[in-house]
């Protein structure tokens, strides 16, 4: 049984690429993603785990990366907003966000896209209530959510 350590070598698949790195045990996953990996699309908007701007996929599930330690991600698969249009081709959801003016400052958008992508992967044709329920953990201060909900539902119905 290994003794507790102050830092730890972790191996994480990030957007399809295996990353090995020694990280301090106290480093938050969101800071590992932003500062160590330079993937600055994932954002920090609060310090109590309420706002969801730091939402990524961990082993396929949307989670808030500000409430996990980087060492907890050892052995997992992580997907961040940068992976959505990895081949340069925007996903239907990203295009719908543009078409429906579903973003203004864009700071909550990465987290919003990761939550909505996870929803659509599980429920391709969500109702408005299901969309709002899925996005409840993602705060936006610019849009009042009107166009975001519209864009997600439009993507769902293939409009």
């Amino acid at each position: 049984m290994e003794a507790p350590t102050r830092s730890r070598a972790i191996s994480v698949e990030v957007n399809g690429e295996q990353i090995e790195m020694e990280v301090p045990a106290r480093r938050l996953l969101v800071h590992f993603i932003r500062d160590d990996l330079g993937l600055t699309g994932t954002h920090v908007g609060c310090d109590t785990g309420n706002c969801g701007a730091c939402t990524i996929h961990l082993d396929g599930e949307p989670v808030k990366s500000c409430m996990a330690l980087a060492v907890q991600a050892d052995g997992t698969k992580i997907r961040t907003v940068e992976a959505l249009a990895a081949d340069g081709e925007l996903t239907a959801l990203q295009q719908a966000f543009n078409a429906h003016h579903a973003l203004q400052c864009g700071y909550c958008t990465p987290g919003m896209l990761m939550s909505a992508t996870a929803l659509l992967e599980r429920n391709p044709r969500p109702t408005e209530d299901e969309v709002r329920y899925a996005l409840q953990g993602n705060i936006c201060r610019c849009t009042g959510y009107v166009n975001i909900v519209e864009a997600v539902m439009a993507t769902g119905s293939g409009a």
Partner: protein
Amino acid sequence: MLLREVEYARPATVEDAVSLLATHDGARPLAGGQTLVNVMKARAAAPDVLVDLADLDELRTIGFSSDGLLEIGAMVTYAQLMSSSEVDVARPILAEVASTIADVQVRNRGTVGGNVCVSDPTNHLPPLLAALGATFTIRGAAGERTVSADEFFLGVYMTAVGEGELLTKVSVPPSSGAGDGFAGVTIGKHGTYIVDAAATVAGDNVAIALGCVAAAPVRAAAMEKRLAGSDFSEATVRGAAEGLGETLDPPSDVHGSADYRRRLAEVSAVRAVLQAAGRRKER
């Protein structure tokens, strides 16, 4: 947002976890981290050693004990509760309440064990499990013991789980015809509760537990007695709730005064009991 230095270990077995917890001063289990990591970010409190329970698959199972109790592993997440067929069959209120805890992201990580061991008065599960008559199995160097909800919930961030011990599972009696209810007032939809109440009506008896009004869940004993064997009509239930507020000494804060919480306790108890009574099967 930036934690103090901390040591971290990720044991492979429950025994290893228990031994790590026993041998390191200031060691704390790390389950979903949806409260503990926030408290560490605020540097409001700082464990010296984190024992990550992520690899203890044994604690992630949901099943039934030999005598038919629903057994929920301490590391079962809220999302697992929501999608579990065993829960849906045995005690669906658990999934119903879990589905209103925080948001999708938190429910994917937050665990039943974390919720009850943090024992924050505003957490959803302590009053619910108290009303359902759940029992809590704790493993330590001296072996395993099981305690009731009254014995488990001692105060804010304080439970029967001592230094060097680990909660392994929560056992919940199947409803077998009983009706369960949960009601209260939240800060925003599906937000943190200002006051909540859980109720279960089995045959002629009702168990009512109130949350957010003290350091641990409070049983509305007088109201339970008054309702035993009653018709559970709205008038009867409202009558039985009178005076409940005065028996409480709830905190006051920016979301409500003690007096507001006393009234909400009565309103929540009535609504939970009526919901539970309405869901009884064997009537």
